[in-house]
């Protein structure tokens, strides 16, 4: 197969006879979906944080562990970490081009987002069932 150096397609996509935009739009769409979810959820998050100001340990734990704030926090966390994982991935895709650096950055982004999400969910659940 003759390689056309002016082609915009990758070698792999040429071999597979695929264009560039098959599942490539999924994350763009997921970004929009999570942003819709995050509008009410971040408003709820701000109100929950405001309600925590000045509270001592017992009442802060009681607030965070009560059903409605806990459920809203869990939804906020899950939508946020997915939203931010896609966002940081597009930043890395745009600016990080060195082959190995890019791979490690993408892995780091995935692990960071998972770790933050799991840690926050664990903490809220522990507070709910304390």
């Amino acid at each position, binding site marked *: 197969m003759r390689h056309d150096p002016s082609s915009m397609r990758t070698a792999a996509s040429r071999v597979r006879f695929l264009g560039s935009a098959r599942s490539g739009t999924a994350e763009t769409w997921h970004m929009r979906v999570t942003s819709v979810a995050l509008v009410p959820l971040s408003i709820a998050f701000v109100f929950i944080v405001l309600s925590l100001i000045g509270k001592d340990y017992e009442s802060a734990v009681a607030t965070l562990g009560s059903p409605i704030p806990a459920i809203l926090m869990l939804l906020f966390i899950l939508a946020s*970490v997915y939203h931010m994982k896609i966002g940081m991935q597009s930043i890395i895709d745009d600016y990080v081009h060195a082959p190995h650096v890019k791979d490690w950055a993408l892995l780091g982004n995935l692990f960071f987002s998972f770790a933050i999400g799991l840690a926050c969910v664990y903490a809220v659940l522990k507070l709910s069932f304390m």
Partner: protein
Amino acid sequence: MAEINLGPGRVGNQRPLSPHLQIYRPMLTMMMSIAHRITGAALYFGTLLLAWYLIAAAAGPDAFATASHFFNSILGKLILLGFTWALFHHFLGGIRHWIWDAGHGFDPAGRELLAQATLVGGLVLTILVWIAACFVG
């Protein structure tokens, strides 16, 4: 699948380059676009603070006291102020993207208005929340 043919004279590795930051004259819409990405990245790392606070609350009174002490310090409050602004700026920037997704606000006056509204709205909401925080706390 059609490929982009660059035509004679543009072969080799001479792929087309779009104009970039150093070439454009700075404009408000462009600054808001950059700010949207920077606030997004800031919020990304800001989740560490949320995780710290929640884990501290789940861990017990001592850890909670340490975290609370930090968030009540001058540095902690400055970081939280920045977090609040980043959250609202990015929030309004997201709504601006919805408006664009719906096909509106692309004309010069519209996009300038949206950029100004994002900037002013983010600052106003930040101030309002911190006034509310002062009344609560």
